[in-house]
């Protein structure tokens, strides 16, 4: 192992890690919002929008992120929308993640007994209040393991961003290998940086799960 090389190119990886995180976090936050929007549409049974959501979820779940990125990166300019790689990365991640988050939320909501809704209605809560104060907090608790898994999955999916010339971790590693043939060192750094990003997320998710684990325990 050439440690000199590693030390020399560490800053490049740091820069790439910051970019990966930036895009990852922005994309994940958008995924959450899209997911919430989708379950709200499904829960309120809004006509037309509901069908659109179903189509979106199936397309988003059943096509690879790489292809989605290509469509956004090469396709949008064709219809006159200018995009930069970062915005593309965020949009791509959000497009993919939205359906995963929607499905995670849905599984949480479906796990809640109808009579919990009725209990809230009988206290005079409206549909919206019931969703906000009674159903969603419990649904999030139930969905927590799935949501955390999605966050980790989406952060890892950022590794395909290199395909649209975003200088993320994967791009940096491939670039350096191409330039210097220091394959072991470059991949070693890559793994270390992914672990540095993802292990804390995984750990924080565990703690959050434990903290929020109230649903299903004695109503």
């Amino acid at each position, binding site marked *: 192992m050439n440690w000199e090389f590693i030390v020399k190119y560490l800053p490049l990886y740091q820069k790439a890690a910051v970019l990966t995180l930036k895009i990852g976090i922005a994309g994940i936050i958008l995924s959450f919002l899209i997911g919430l929007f989708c379950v709200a549409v499904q829960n309120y049974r809004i006509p037309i929008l509901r069908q659109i959501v179903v189509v979106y979820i199936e397309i988003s779940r059943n096509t690879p992120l790489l292809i989605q990125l290509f469509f956004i990166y090469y396709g949008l300019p064709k219809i006159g929308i200018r995009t930069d790689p970062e915005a593309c990365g965020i949009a791509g991640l959000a497009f993919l993640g939205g359906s995963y988050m929607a499905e995670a939320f849905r599984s949480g909501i479906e796990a809640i007994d109808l009579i919990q809704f*009725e*209990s809230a209605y*009988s*206290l*005079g*809560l409206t549909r919206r209040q019931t969703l906000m104060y009674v159903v969603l907090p*419990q649904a999030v608790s139930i969905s927590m393991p799935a949501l955390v898994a999605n966050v980790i999955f989406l952060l890892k999916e950022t590794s395909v961003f290199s395909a649209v010339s975003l200088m993320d971790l994967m791009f940096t590693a491939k670039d350096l290998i191409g330039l210097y043939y220091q394959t072991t060192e470059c991949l070693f750094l890559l793994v270390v940086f992914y672990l540095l990003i993802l292990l804390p997320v995984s750990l924080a998710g565990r703690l959050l799960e434990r903290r929020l684990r*109230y649903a299903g325990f004695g*109503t």
Partner: protein
Amino acid sequence: MADTILEVRHLMKQFDDLMVLKDINLTVHEGEVIVIVGPSGCGKSTFLRCINALEDIQGGEIRLNGELVSKESKNLAVIRQKIGMVFQSYELFPHLNVLDNITLAPVKVQKRPKEEVREEALALLSRVGLSDKAESFPRQLSGGQKQRVAIVRALCMKPEILLFDEVTAALDPEMVREVLDVILRLADQGKTMLIVTHEMQFARAVADRVIFLEDGVIKEEGKPEQFFDAPQTERAKEFLKTFTFERKHKE
């Protein structure tokens, strides 16, 4: 006679092909305690759920203080605030502690000041012997305690009528009493209540009027002494017999 609070006229309820309630008529006056008894599956619980518009109905109408209670009502949420309901399975909100369970609706729905509701909730909790549980979560409570919290939660909305749907059916025998005592005290305070129960001793003690429901119709109706001591219909006699035990061949 006191003012009419609830008026049920020709209520019909059907699940697919099954007619569960056929032409139910009932008038509930202010301060009246009505106990509904009857065999399993006779429609008692469905009847209560209809009154709270948790079920859609196929015929007839339900009026609370003259106002139509229906799933289609625009102001259904407002009407439901006036109808308190306690479920067999408690249905507290597991992610909120006892105090928040009780204050959620008064604060968010009735927009009452949080401090005022909090004080009232604590006062009610102490009346049912649970002052020390205000910060506890539902999972930390026994069944009887949960049910008392559920009653307080309904009470804190200051409803005009309370519906109790077999509230002790899921409880261990030694916890039944603590819950029924609370309901008895509410009766003494003059609360208007509709109670579905299988506890006949309790029914007798608490009721102003007993209604015997079977096959979706009211088969018999009367004062508790009259119903329990001298039931008029054969079906009521048979039903009451199922609550007494004797050995056929005693040595």
